[in-house]
């Protein structure tokens, strides 16, 4: 399983939504299920999956499925767009 598949799987497990829904528009501001409890679950699950530790700023500004990829890249986890194919 590549990093994009692992990343998408975490979102799927947290939100219980089909994987195709996780795209550029999937964001804290627009997804009603993404409340502070879900946010904490997501952050913890990503830390465990990729064996990293987010900074406070990362946690606060995670914000969206896409932005999360950039934050993960800063922790050495590269998620390429074409990986899933």
């Amino acid at each position: 399983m590549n990093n994009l598949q692992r990343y998408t799987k975490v979102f799927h497990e947290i939100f219980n939504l089909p994987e195709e829904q996780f795209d550029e528009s999937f964001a804290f501001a627009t997804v009603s299920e993404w409340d502070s409890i879900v946010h904490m679950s997501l952050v913890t699950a990503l830390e465990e999956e990729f064996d990293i530790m987010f900074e406070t700023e990362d946690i606060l500004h995670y914000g969206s499925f896409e932005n999360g990829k950039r934050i993960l890249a800063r922790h050495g986890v590269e998620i390429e767009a074409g990986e899933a194919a």
Partner: protein
Amino acid sequence: MQLSRFENFRIAGMATAVPANSVAVEHFAAQFGEENMRKFSQMTGVREVRRAHPAQTASDLAFLAAEDLLARTAVERERISLLLFVTQKPDHRVPATAYVLQKRLHLESHCICLDLNLACSGYIYGLHTALSLLHRSPGCAGALVLTGDTSMRTLSPMDRTVFPLFGDAGTATLLLPDEAAPSIGTGLWSDGSRFKSIITPSGAYRNPDGELERREWGDGIVRSDYDTHMKGKEIFEFSITDVPAFVGRYLADIGKTPDDFDTFAIHQANLFILKQLARKNRLPSDKLPVSIDRFGNTSSNSVPLVLCDHFGSVVDRALRVFGCGFGGGLSLGCADFEMEAAQIFPVLESDDFYQS
């Protein structure tokens, strides 16, 4: 942050009372879904909460704690010249509930009585206010700082973010003069610009015609104007940025490090926030007692409750305590004090209530 240091008083006792009725998080699965509750429990740390009988008020719980405290310390009631009750769930609109408690506790007429309307930071604010009044009132021989909250009374049962989180409790702390006592420090901080972050919009006089009927709000949660609304994102941000920063600043300002304390009695907001605070301020996990798993977030009661829960059966140990509460207002309070573990009493369970 407003820093203060008080000499010549000691914390001579601390007691806590909770309702006997325990509600497990699984109970909420029918309303919010099994998987949601599993994640909720994992993140917040809450496994069960105590819920008061419908007739039992916050002051009933504070009264039970105060009676337990007065009996165990054997302090004469005429020595209590200040009674301060921290609550957001008073018995009546008028008068202040401290007067009801004065009557029930048989305290004398020279006792100053007042309520303080604060939630999760309330214990530290109460401690600070009581010590300030004691210092300026030479005739005061001792004080009772009581806290009590039944937060559930203004929570929408359809609000998945708060309804399973909050538990009910009451506490009592005794302050007595003691010239040999180590000083007690406090640091308070307030930010009224964020007063809407935790708010019950109606039920007082600003919005007297608020909608009683529960409807879906912009965040997708069904509540009325009389239910307490916590803006999760704002509170989350406050809790993982401002709070660790102020805790670090307070420690630096008083010239202490985590090594200088035996225990960190931190407001039990949720487990994730507790862990973040510990991580940022390098607080050792073995010095960070947790009670949210069995009692939930108990508002102003958190700090004394976690001490009674963990040290209620400990004797022969002097404790250097760091306390911190934070929440609505927004507000935050830090405190450092020393006390004997033998003066911290076990958590009492009771469903008793006052029939006036």
